[in-house]
């Protein structure tokens, strides 16, 4: 697409933030731990639980070690950026709002083709699933739209809509470039300038140099720490002070280490299911703690 003044990568982010701020969202900053998707941030995973409304939007760098391509592949990245919106409960005009957000970043929908194609989402690791679509713009998947149904094994009191924009794809589309590395981050600086070294070096580490023994050790340390905290909650005298969020950070560490081990080829297919089960156990355990701490909810589902 030839655009006289293509929107820069960072301008696109500014405009999305502005749009959702004007529509009543908290604008959060990225979570400061490694995550595989914006969904895993406490701002989504924990906030969707329970009866309290919440509206938040944030950019989240998301790490998928297995998707790394040493900075060679024009469309695949070890670390891509998601723009995540959570609207809880979902307003009735949510899709209209979403379409307006596309207009806000400069997509004239009267000249483009938008389709909503069935795409349900499930994360066995998080005990979570939802119903929704992938949104296709001129044949390109630009957004995942999901109505959360369950999270951490809990049926959700208020059904949140989760909107996840793929920022690199959207920008490449708007700037009419074939490779994400050719994206103009801001005039004078390309995505390549900012991120290529990260992609190359992380791929080398993830695929070649990561020490499998050390990763397993770390996985077990974080898993044990998460479990220790989960087990300690019941007898802790002041539940409101209990560090549930710290326990969840241990879970996020486990999840990222699992992804690293997977990319490193260290997990056989048979083991894979078992390891996912271990991460799920602590993730669901933390969700229960959060429900109990914040809402006094009894355990309601078996993990």
């Amino acid at each position, binding site marked *: 697409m030839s655009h006289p003044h293509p929107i820069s990568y960072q301008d696109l982010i500014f405009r999305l933030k502005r749009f959702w701020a004007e529509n009543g969202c908290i604008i959060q900053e990225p979570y400061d731990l490694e995550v595989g998707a914006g969904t895993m941030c406490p701002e989504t995973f924990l906030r969707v639980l329970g009866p309290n409304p919440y509206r938040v939007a944030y950019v989240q760098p998301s790490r998928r070690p297995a998707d790394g391509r040493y900075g060679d592949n024009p469309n695949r990245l070890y670390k891509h950026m998601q723009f995540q919106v959570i609207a809880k409960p979902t307003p009735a005009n949510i899709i209209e709002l979403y379409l307006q957000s596309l207009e806000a970043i400069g997509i004239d929908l009267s*000249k483009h*083709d938008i389709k909503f194609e*069935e795409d349900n989402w499930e994360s066995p690791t998080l005990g979570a699933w939802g119903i929704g679509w992938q949104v296709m713009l001129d044949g390109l998947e630009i957004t995942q739209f999901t109505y959360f149904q369950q999270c951490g094994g809990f049926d959700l009191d208020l059904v949140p809509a989760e909107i996840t924009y793929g920022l690199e794809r959207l920008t490449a589309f708007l700037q009419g470039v074939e490779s994400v590395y050719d994206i103009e981050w801001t005039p004078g600086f390309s995505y390549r300038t900012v991120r290529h070294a990260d992609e190359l070096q992380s791929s080398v580490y993830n695929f070649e140099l990561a020490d499998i023994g050390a990763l397993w050790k770390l996985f077990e340390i974080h898993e044990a720490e998460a479990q220790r905290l989960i087990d300690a909650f019941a007898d802790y005298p002041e539940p409101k002070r209990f560090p549930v969020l710290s326990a969840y950070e241990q879970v996020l560490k486990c999840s990222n280490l699992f992804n690293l081990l997977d990319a490193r080829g260290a997990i056989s297919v048979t083991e894979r299911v078992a390891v996912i089960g271990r991460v799920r156990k602590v993730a669901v355990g933390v969700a229960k703690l959060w429900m109990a701490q914040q809402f006094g909810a009894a355990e309601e589902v078996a993990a």
Partner: protein
Amino acid sequence: MLPFILEIGTEEIPDWMIPGALENLQNLFTELLTKHRLQHEALQLDATPRRLVLRCSGVQEAQESTESLVTGPPVSAAFKNDQPTPAAHAFAKKMNTALENIQRVATPKGEYLAFQQKVEGRPTAAILSESLAELVLSIHFPKNMVWAGKGTSRFIRPIRWLVALLGDTVVPFSIEGVSSSNTTAGHRRLGKNSVPVTYATYEQALRDNGVILSADERRKRIVEGSEALAVAKGVKVSLDADLLETLVYITEFPTPILGTFADEYLTLPQEVLITVMKHHQKYFAVHRMDGSLAPHFVAVMNTAADPEGLVVNGNQRVLRARFNDARFFWDVDQKKTLADRVESLGNVTFHAKLGNYLEKTNRNRSLVGKLAELAGADKAHAERAAELAKCDLTTELVKEFTELQGVVGGLYARFQGELETVAAAIYDQYKPTSMDGDIPATLLGQLLSLADKGDTLSSCFSIGLIPKGSSDPFALRRAAQGIVRILVEGEAKLNLEAFDGGNAALREFFTDRIRYYFREVRGFAYDEVNAVMAAGFADLKDALQRLEALREVRPTADFEPLAASFKRIKNILRQAEVSSGAVRQELLTEDAEQALYQEFIQVRDRVKQLRISDDYKGALTAIASLRPAVDAFFDKVLVNAEDQNVRLNRLGLLHQLLTELSAIADFSEIVTR
């Protein structure tokens, strides 16, 4: 009669669920009207991704009033000394009438008070108003959701508006805060989101707001538009039927556009190109007049036009990236041949309890070797094909395009210089993938497919993984059906026993599939299938020939009467508990039994001759020719003779007749008119 319209306005419903939902909605509505004794004219069902619509040109305005006789207390309790008791007053009050209107009726139990009660018919609007919410929420979808919170209504996607009009009046009801009205919504971009309608203006109002309500019209627009684009380019568009239906139900205003890709991508196998276009991008492939793939595609937009060509450009760009990926994967995959990948199959799980794909490969290899020997095929080639068959599961291309498993293996095998027969077998190993899909084209491909499916079935059955009801996660029914089809339609003459491994449950499973195949796919009558299968079905090609012969002979005059006689013989033998039989000629006293015996011997010998030459029709015709002799026997001869020796001899004759002549088809299974 009043016209009625119901529109359920939703967010985008998955395309494949829509036709089923409409059928269900039609049934639910018809049941509702029937239950409430409401007459109606024909129903018209329509849908787009955002609306399910039911229209009826005329529904009865109100129920007919009815009268019914309500009996009350017995007269003996209602009147004492000709004076009404409280029971009589209570009944009159309950009937909402004066005591003088109460009648008496005579019943077998005595005389009772009674009242002819008139029930006023209720207005249809009231009935619909209290029923529609439940009706809408009863529509069946494969996977529902909640949107208004835990424990609220479930539907396929959030309901955002409801139109319900009977005549000019809104039928009031609501679902999760959405109240019915006379206002619909147009296309998300081409129309207004609030459009007032009446029954008469509904379809045109939608059209004015960018929505083509009729699926037929959308289909026509896609087909004709796509063909016109292709003609203008001198090419031919391949309108895949499944994809066409998807596009019909994923759009409210479909408009095809033609895109182009660089010729250089045509060096990729066309299977890969077509999969990317069709499955991943929902594009129709385009062919040149000579049948080769053309560097074009047809995409279908959900909007009216692409005035600046932005949509075509966008789609071309996406396709280019996809093709680049595919080419990248192809190149990466060539760094390691299929043969070099065999060992790594040990890391790919087939099933937690059934081991990995290396183990499965070894089992397949050993089974296909045996089958090749039995079928007279090249054993070494068959084993080579089995050895390499699953290796494509470790390739990047199959990881990305899983639906191309097998196909990619075949392409790589050819590219890497394996024998053509080996490559073709690997390519076809998963066929047939559906009831009417092709079976593998070559003998080796058929053997490989048989071995792979046979091993999967016997492995799963050995650990109790047996499909129940609609649950069949390993597609074992399809696997067994595939084996049946290949055994009947393929080149190799193989015995079914090579596949059931003596497992009774698996044999039963195959038997069901065989019945299904002969009845539903080949169209034989169920009693013909029973008759032929009762005479054995280890050799399915032979069973098919016998079925065909039976179908031909069945309409002839002697056949069904003889079948009836065979059934009679079977019953006589069962009652007499005879399970073997010798015939002593000297005990054949009556003419009719001698005649039957002589003719039986002749027919038996002729049938043997005809069977050797596989002339089943001739054999069955010969058997049918016994009818006059059999009829005469039953007319003239008393089977239950007083003399025990004579009786046993006659039973022996019948027994021989039945067993010797039931080897092609068990005539007693035929249901006679």
